[in-house]
């Protein structure tokens, strides 16, 4: 069976468009808010959505997503609850959905990838599972047709080649060293970084970490096939709580316009 992520990128390529990928922490403000936000983001022109499964100790995240994870956990968010939420969403949308979560969450859930397939998850992003540990979950992910999205960073250098070789779906390019969060500026030499990536990548590559508005999305998109926006969305939930959906729609429209301009 074809993966929705591949289908989406084929569709975008045919339309000559860049991918807009967004991230939201599941259960931040409650499952219902997350569900509404996911559907609103699709309506506002988002192509792929990453759903963060909150973890007690998210070492790759900056303050924004750390706090969102903590809020979600305090509300009693669980992996089981996230799967149920995704199952409800799948009745309403065909948008590619990924789970972003830490290795221990998968490790402690023996039927994790079967559940992913059952509810309609297309891929996972595991920030603490580098190339060296890539085969930890490979067999069960492959058996269920779930992609494991690989990350590369500006300090990956000669690792990019071997990472690109095993990458599925799209390559997640981290714009700058450090943790997630909006940034005022990027210090990475993008021409060099994306030069290295373009040489190795046989699949689309998208950029995340630090993209905060339509303008930054527009500027960075000339280097890649799409952008990933997380903290800027999560900030809206932090700021507006249950009233965040219109604000999320607004920023997604702005990002879409930035990418399409």
């Amino acid at each position, binding site marked *: 069976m074809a993966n929705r992520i591949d289908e989406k990128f084929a569709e975008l390529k045919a339309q000559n468009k860049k991918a807009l990928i967004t991230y939201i922490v599941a259960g931040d403000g409650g499952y219902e808010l997350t569900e509404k936000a996911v559907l609103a983001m699709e309506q506002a022109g988002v192509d792929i959505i990453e759903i963060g499964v909150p973890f007690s100790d998210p070492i790759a995240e900056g303050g924004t997503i750390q706090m969102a994870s903590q809020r979600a956990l305090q509300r009693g968010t669980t992996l089981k609850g996230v799967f149920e939420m995704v199952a409800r969403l799948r009745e309403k949308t065909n948008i590619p959905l990924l789970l972003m979560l830490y290795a221990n969450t998968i490790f402690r859930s023996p039927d994790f990838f079967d559940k992913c397939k059952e509810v309609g998850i297309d891929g996972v992003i595991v920030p603490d599972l580098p190339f060296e540990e890539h085969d930890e979950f490979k067999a069960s992910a492959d058996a269920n047709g779930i992609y494991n999205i690989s990350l*590369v960073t500006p300090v990956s250098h000669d690792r990019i080649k071997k990472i690109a070789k095993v990458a599925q779906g799209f390559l997640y390019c981290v714009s700058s060293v450090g943790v997630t969060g909006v940034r005022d500026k990027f210090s990475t030499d993008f021409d060099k970084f994306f030069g290295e990536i373009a040489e190795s990548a046989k699949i689309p590559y998208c950029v995340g970490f630090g993209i905060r508005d339509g303008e930054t999305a527009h500027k960075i998109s000339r280097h890649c096939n799409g952008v990933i926006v997380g903290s800027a969305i999560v900030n809206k939930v932090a700021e507006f709580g249950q009233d965040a959906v219109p604000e999320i729609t607004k920023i997604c429209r702005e990002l879409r316009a930035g990418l399409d301009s």
Partner: protein
Amino acid sequence: MEKIGRFGEFGGQYVPETVMNAVSELLEAYEHYKNDPVFIQELHDLYRNYAFRPSLLYYADKMTKDLGGAKIYIKREDLNHTGSHKINNALGQVLLAKHMGKKRVIAETGAGQHGVATATVCAYFDLECEVYMGREDMERQALNVYRMELLGAKVTGVDSGTATLKDAINEAMRDWATNIETTFYCIGSVMGPHPYPTMVRDFQKIIGEEAKKQIMEAEGKLPDCVVACVGGGSNAMGIFYDFIPDTSVRLVGAEAAGRGIDTPDHAATISKGDLGIFHGMKSIFLQNDEGQIAPVFSISAGLDYPGIGPEHAWLHSTGRADYVAITDEEAVQAFEYLSKVEGIIPAVESAHAVAAARKIAPTMRPDQIMIINLSGRGDKDVQQIARYRGVNING
């Protein structure tokens, strides 16, 4: 794919891609320098002339007579410069950082002993040093915070999560990912991604090597039992390692049972934990059914960690070492006991080992020998013990 840095199924390199290049660079540098005669000589000179090694192996005559079982020797790591075994590892790693051309060193600390040791060696080598410490630990170990600042280090409080050791490690890892090209992360225990568990054990194994030589000189035979406290497990790996092939030597780790392992307030990872992946390694962790890392509790900030080094998990799984859980109350009693009986005030961490020894030694014969690793001195803990006992010493 070939798996590196494993102890059985435990260990590995479960860290974000951003730090993987630095981890690989560290591995390469460590593999080179550990066999470099110049580096080895420098380190041993520092051990001898700066850290005051070899540390004494002290025969605890009164304790032996009082407990009426095994002959008890105490390995006096508390007499090292900076007051604990942590200096052994800090010297090794910061010397390595210096050779690698790094200008900035970061560390996490729980009780503050590793932070103090790292700050000390950074002062010695003129390197910038920043130490992450949980806010709660800063309060219970205020003296060590001041010591680190005195040594020129910046101490950064961590408020996230439980504001203790695991959160300090999270924050140090985030700093490392952000300043990856200039910064060396000096991990304080036998934990984290490969090569840290192996490297830190190698820098600590001198404890066991000395102890073996010293006990052979004093008694002409191997000990029957070696006891050490275990948080992440660096002092225990340090004294255990050289005895692992000597299967007649029983190895015992004492972990923190806090208010008791049947309460939620403990840090007894081996007793109550499960296999998981966290802080760069596959090992045993205290966690809930969905793999969320559990809050932990211990009177000892140095043992207040929800995981254990992968080599300990392996020693446990193979049955080579035993792990026992010691409550706060037992540790405080042992703290007072060693102070009164031998005139040695142990760190509250090390008091867990003393408490385990008090249980095990009476079950042994007088012709048998036990070595307790006294990993640190207790000056830093006096105020907290007084508070635990309800004594106000602040006037």
